[in-house]
């Protein structure tokens, strides 16, 4: 049972930490979007796109949590597989990249998005560049997601 608990703890961390990061990031970008839209409500479309960017880390965390639950046999009603504590620990370790990187990268992506929102407030024609800047932060969340997936695929259970 300890193995299953460790694996579930890993899934919870992936969904929770990445989700918290995304919530903070979207909140920061949302504050900037509200400031810009107070002066110019027509910028809603551009602001919404930039505000949504830090939300992806939360989705990546959820994806990994589903992956783990599926691996444990907890989805579909087939019953949980037996796990040793060592296998549980391996799954927990596999969840850490997206949990930690997702958490931090979402916050920083939110800050970059907020700066980009301020940029399009003055230069709306630079929308393309404004999206690229926060998207650069996304790279590291994607790399963490890939790492978590590859590690999970390598863990032998059942």
């Amino acid at each position: 049972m300890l193995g299953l608990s460790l694996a579930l703890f890993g899934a919870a961390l992936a969904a929770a930490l990445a989700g918290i990061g995304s919530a903070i990031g979207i909140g920061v970008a949302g504050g900037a979007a509200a400031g810009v839209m107070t002066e110019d409500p027509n910028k809603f479309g551009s602001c919404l796109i930039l505000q949504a960017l830090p939300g992806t880390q939360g989705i990546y965390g959820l994806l990994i949590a589903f992956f783990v639950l599926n691996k444990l046999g907890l989805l579909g009603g087939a019953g949980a597989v037996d796990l040793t504590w060592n296998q549980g620990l391996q799954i927990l370790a596999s969840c850490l990249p997206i949990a930690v990187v997702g958490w931090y990268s979402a916050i920083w992506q939110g800050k970059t998005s907020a700066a980009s929102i301020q940029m399009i407030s003055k230069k709306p024609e630079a929308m393309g560049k404004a999206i690229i800047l926060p998207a650069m932060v996304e790279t590291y969340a994607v790399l963490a997601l890939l790492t978590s997936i590859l590690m999970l695929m390598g863990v032998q259970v059942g």
Partner: protein
Amino acid sequence: MKDRRAEANYVYTVARLRGMENNLLDTAFFSRLMDSTGIDDAVKALGETSYSQWISGSSTGNFDKAIDSEILATCEELKSFVPDQEILDIFRMPYDFHNLKVLLKGLFKVRSGELEGRRYDLLSKLGTIDTDELTNSIETEEYGFLPYGLTDLIPQCWQLWEQTKNAQAVELLIDHHMFRAMLKVAEDLNVSEITNWVKNKIDAENLRAAIRLSRMKYDSSKALQFFHDGGTIRADDIAKLLNEPMDTWGRILSYTNIGKVLNSLNEQGDMKFALSDVSKAFDEFLLNVLENAKFSMDAPANVLLFLLSKEAEARNMRVALVCVAGGLDREFGRRLLSNGR
């Protein structure tokens, strides 16, 4: 930055200021305004700007009121969303001290037998203290509720006046106190860029005074009283400048940022010409001190930078309208325009 909550609020604040910056009028607009054939033409050009809501006539007095109303409206708007009101206070405090000088000088004249001494028309509504309340408290000698240490300052002013009958000495006392009070508010606010700006403002005021005194061939040993403490350059060091030729001041102060401004003025020969050019260069320098805040999405200094830009806009508006109304030389007017935005 006081805490995480304040940081989040400044993201909103700075974003809103970025939006408001789009409505600031640039020097190209003022240059076009100066090309107006007459004051009616200029009023028409102002119809597209936020100043139009305050303009009710075409006399110079009306324009002054309109410009003050626009800055006051901007301050009131910022008050509704800026987390630290002290930043607005730092911008508005000089107007409080201006009002204090106007009221005290008026009363000095009245006590000297000049019954028409009071000049309420010179009071500015831009201060943090309501002008009626300030007037009432000074007339009734009830200073208890006044901020920035005015409770102690005003009796000192009266005492100095009784001893010397010298209004200029009282003005100096008020100015010294104002800069001390501004520095204290800035230090309590704990935003290094704003504290640095106040210190540089003190330097700029001291150097402006030094240039005036140097032109008057004033004796350096008696000049120390004219300089304020608290700047990045010691008041003693500025007084010593009066012993040196003005064109060497930039080199002597090359270790400071304002020294570079003096060097640049010296290269253009402006130190020998209009004091207005020196003032313009110092005003632009003070805007540049806060320039780095532009690159931050949540720096509180952006609030002060915006207010100073708005003040520079108001100054340009005055220059342009005076040029048009008075039929003054447009090229001279253009030279006075500062690059606020």
